[in-house]
């Protein structure tokens, strides 16, 4: 027990030192190198519904408004418009379009962190043949699917390089409704790149 407590304290002390060191590094880097001003970018990402049901998302993002920028502290609002496609083999295929509002800050000149909210439309079609009973008592193969309102909330962690390609990872919770009698929540993971276009 004594050994365990000692180890625990050592770990806590080490963690505190590490956080403190990172702070010092961040401060030093801020002094030496400020993150470049935000620029419009195009993005391309793997879009994994429930992480492993794969799709793709392409988008355009830009700083939201100079009035909302807090340039001094390197914190910016962004907006993005996106188009995507996701497939659950044998279940459904969906296309979607959404708009997102994001808030980013840069604890290190090469690191960006952020949060996003979004709304959009998701249109899916079933991947397997569908049959429905018709009024005449016969079954017919039909094309079936549906449209759903889509809202999302997510976090972002990424590299920051305004000159070349940056990488980012965005875990999100996406709500799709209507779904049966309510709404469906999906865990989504985006892994992508963004590239400045000016």
């Amino acid at each position, binding site marked *: 027990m004594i050994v365990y407590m000692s180890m625990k304290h050592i770990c806590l002390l080490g963690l505190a030192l590490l956080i403190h060191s990172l702070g010092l590094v961040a401060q030093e880097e801020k002094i030496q190198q400020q993150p470049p001003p935000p620029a419009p970018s195009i993005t391309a990402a793997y879009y994994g519904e429930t992480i492993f049901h794969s799709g793709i998302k392409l988008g355009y993002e830009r700083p939201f408004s100079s009035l909302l920028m807090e340039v001094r502290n390197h914190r910016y609002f962004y907006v993005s418009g996106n188009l995507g496609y996701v497939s659950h083999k*044998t279940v459904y295929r969906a296309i979607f379009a959404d708009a997102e509002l994001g808030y980013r800050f840069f604890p290190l000149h090469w690191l960006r962190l952020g949060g996003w909210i979004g709304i959009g439309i998701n249109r899916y079609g*079933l991947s397997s043949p*569908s049959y429905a009973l018709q009024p005449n008592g016969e*079954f017919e*193969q039909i094309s079936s699917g549906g449209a759903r309102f889509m809202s999302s909330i997510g976090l972002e962690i990424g590299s920051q390089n305004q000159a070349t390609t940056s990488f980012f990872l965005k875990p999100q919770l996406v709500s799709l409704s209507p779904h*049966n009698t309510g709404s469906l929540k999906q*865990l989504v993971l985006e892994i992508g790149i963004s590239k400045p276009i000016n």
Partner: protein
Amino acid sequence: MACVPQEEIVEGIAVQEQFYLVHQGAQMPVLVEGNTESNTFILIVHGGPGGNAMVYNDLLGSFSNPLEEKYAMVYWDQRGSGNSLGNYGVESVTVNQFVEDLDVLVDLLFARYGQDIQVFLLGHSWGGTLTAAYLSQAGNQDKIAGWIEVDGAHNFPLINETTPAELIRTGREQIPAGNRVDEWTEIVDYCENLTQPLSLAEILQVNRYANVVESYLIEAGITTQSSLQLGEAVRFYFFSNHNFMTSFFNSSMTSRGLLEELVFNSYSEDMKEIRIPSLFLWGRHDLVVPPVLADDAFHAISTPPADKSIYIFEDSGHSPMAQQPEEFSLKLIQFVEKYR
């Protein structure tokens, strides 16, 4: 009766075919797997409400694979269950709507695979409720070659009365044996303080306890470990076509929607209309739906004694197809071979 769809019908000894039944706002996946040349179809009506049919296929292969060699197994995700999609109101979450869905699916199987096929219904847990309700309605049983009810919840008042008593009885055996003493003491104390009839909250709590003790009975060596393996479950939920988020949200929506209609209802009286061959398969140590329900079903239906039987799996709880899969498949095959 519906006609055969224009799409080519798939026949073979190792068919794997998925399609959707679209009905009253629900888009319900149906997987037909196995030997369609046998012309014998076993339609799995899963538990829940809000359960998942694909579990019986993907995770319980030691039960379903031997059956697929001989027959065509039909795995149907009911509305608001498994990977089902759609858009409908809460007014469609009723036992009658599920019965109608099942009836349309049976008609679709005949339309798709031919009028000469034979369809057996296997209802597990809530699936037992649903199949009992379906077969009790006029004309439906004429389409069905045989009924297999597995730990089926066709009489909730009887469950509500029996489960607390069984929890007390089992707890009093387990506490002196030193097995999960604190947990069993809590359960026994709770059940001893209940008065009949139970409230909805009490029914749910008793049901939770009955489900929890399934693992205690495995630990105590009274029932056998489920054939369901952790690795398979991880593969199923994360690396298959299955979407565990859809399944999770479906389950909570559907079970909540059906709860109040179900937990005070009994279908035993209606079941006197049932006259088809029937087999009641139960786990001896099922505390969720105790084996007394097998006797209740056996006596409730009007099937001649020669064509109905009960078989109790001595080392199983609520899911004998998971705990004694080989024996379960064998009993099922014997029944189907007799009546197909």
